[in-house]
């Protein structure tokens, strides 16, 4: 665990970068530092590996003051990833990754073997080992940066806006792979970003910093969205935090119904009195086929003969959130979302009213949305 105890950083000019910050970053979890620029989040990160020395207070790693180690030795035991990767242009990819092993005097063979193993881990082709950084795309460079930080298998990783400099598609890809990697590695990670969405997606805990180096709130993403500590936090998270919160409510909490669901071989007469004017048609295996409008049914025959409107997308009852279910409902021609199980078979249908029930059950937000407007 990384512990900040009353850490203050004041620069000679009088600027306060960190103002009495106390905080725990639990072992094996991702703690995200987020905030406005000048909020001190990067400064806070840099006190952990002594790139910045606090004016007062202390930083502890597993109860031990970081100042008990020489800076260089301390840093070799802590992974470090920065915004533009900061690769060494004169070194090949494998030698960039092996930087810390070389510093620790591993032999070359072992260090390179480790580099190749990590390249695979972070999704880089082995053929890139002998290339130079200028031959790689921004996203690939950032992967090398992550591999380089992991090279000596440090228990702690410090990541300063590692995905900010790449385009949104690559960023989402890197974020997903980062989470997958963390599932395997369980590092203690401190991650700095100015992007609230990224913080919510990646963080187990989020620490919000305000201009002047004040730490205003430390909470899980869910709690942060539900109960921002003050107007600054509410405004910083943004006006759609209510919608974002739906990501944390499981879709399984919504009531599902079998109303107006018919197999494709059911006679059309059974569809005529559908309450919402739409009938969901499923095949013999209960896989949803599409929506049939009650008004557009053929005079006779089975419902499968009707022209079917596409479902849009379904939601996975076990894995998706209410946010996905709500999205499915909004995009559905009938206004109802189709829930499926892992095999793609129908689990039930939820309309927007059902989803509202689930949201209400998850606990009402004590702060009305208008308060957030004031903060913004």
């Amino acid at each position: 665990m990384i512990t900040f105890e009353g850490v203050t950083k004041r620069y000679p000019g009088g600027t306060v970068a960190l103002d009495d910050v106390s905080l725990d970053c639990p072992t094996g979890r991702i703690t995200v530092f987020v905030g406005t620029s000048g909020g001190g989040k990067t400064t806070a990160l840099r006190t952990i590996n002594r790139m910045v020395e606090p004016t007062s207070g202390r930083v502890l790693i597993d109860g031990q003051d970081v100042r008990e180690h020489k800076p260089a030795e301390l840093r070799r035991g802590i992974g470090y990833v920065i915004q533009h990767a900061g690769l060494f242009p004169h070194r090949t990819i494998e030698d960039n990754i092996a930087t810390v092993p070389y510093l620790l005097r591993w032999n070359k063979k072992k260090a390179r073997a480790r580099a190749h193993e990590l390249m695979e881990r972070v999704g880089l082709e082995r053929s890139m080992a002998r290339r130079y950084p200028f031959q790689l795309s921004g996203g690939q460079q950032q992967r090398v940066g992550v591999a380089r930080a992991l090279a000596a298998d440090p228990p702690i990783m410090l990541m300063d806006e590692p995905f900010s400099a790449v385009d949104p598609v690559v960023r989402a890809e890197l974020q997903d792979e980062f989470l997958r990697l963390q599932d395997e590695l369980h590092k203690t990670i401190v991650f700095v970003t100015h992007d609230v969405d990224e913080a919510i997606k990646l963080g187990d805990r989020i620490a919000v910093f305000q201009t002047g180096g004040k730490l205003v709130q430390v909470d899980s993403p869910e709690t942060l969205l539900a109960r921002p500590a003050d107007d600054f936090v509410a405004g910083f998270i943004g006006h759609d935090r209510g919608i974002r919160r739906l990501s944390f409510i499981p879709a399984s909490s919504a009531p599902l119904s079998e109303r107006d669901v018919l197999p494709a071989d059911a006679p059309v007469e059974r569809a005529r009195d559908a309450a919402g004017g739409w009938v969901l048609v499923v095949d013999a295996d209960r896989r949803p086929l599409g929506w049939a409008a009650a008004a557009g049914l053929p005079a006779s025959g089975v419902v499968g003969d009707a022209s079917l409107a596409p479902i849009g997308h379904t939601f996975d009852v076990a894995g998706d959130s209410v946010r996905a279910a709500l999205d499915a409902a909004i995009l559905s021609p009938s206004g109802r979302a189709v829930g499926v199980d892992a095999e793609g078979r129908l689990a039930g249908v939820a309309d927007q009213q059902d989803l509202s029930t689930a949201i209400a059950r998850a606990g009402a937000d004590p702060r009305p949305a208008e308060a957030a407007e004031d903060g913004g």
Partner: protein
Amino acid sequence: MNDLWNQIDLFWTWLTASSQWEGDDGIPHRTLEHLYYTGVALFAAAVIGLALGLLVGHTGRGGFLAVSVANVARAIPTFGLVLFIVVIDYSITPVLVALVALAVPPILVNTFEGVRGVDADAKDAARGMGMSGWGVLWRAELPMALPLILLGLRTSAIQVVATATIAAYPGFGGLGRYIIDGLARNDYQLVVGGTVLVVLLALIVQLIFAGLRRLVVSPGLLGTARSS
């Protein structure tokens, strides 16, 4: 065209005369003298220029002062410096001092700019991964600054090769001997011979540095837009 051909012919007759290839005034001996002056001056200048440039570039302190002094030094006429010091101490040392003074500024300025221009992110990463101050200089800054440093060394080497001819003025050796003597005796052939040899030497220096660049500069740096 005819004129050029005459010059080449003149040079060739001079060069191929057997008397040119033996004794203290022969081409081999004079060339060795010339290379000796050049080598000593360049080595001393490289030690001074690299040490100061790396120090100032790495620490980021005194850069303005160092560059200003170096640029002022460039304005000192080498010839004048030689005459001035030779009056005080008649030996080869003043000539070498003048050549060193000529060679230090390009090396110093390029080394300083090269180190200062190293990508700040790469420097931060080097420090953040646990390199010591020396480690950052040796493993990151120096190799990344190498293209510019070599350019500075090459500039100085060519200047020194060309300027070492002034050693002949106060009466020492080197290829300048031919030029000074030729001018004194109105021996046009001798002047042309000495000049062409100096030019050839400068071209060889240029070639050596081109080879050195391929040898010691990482392909990772040559592949980028940086060139010299």
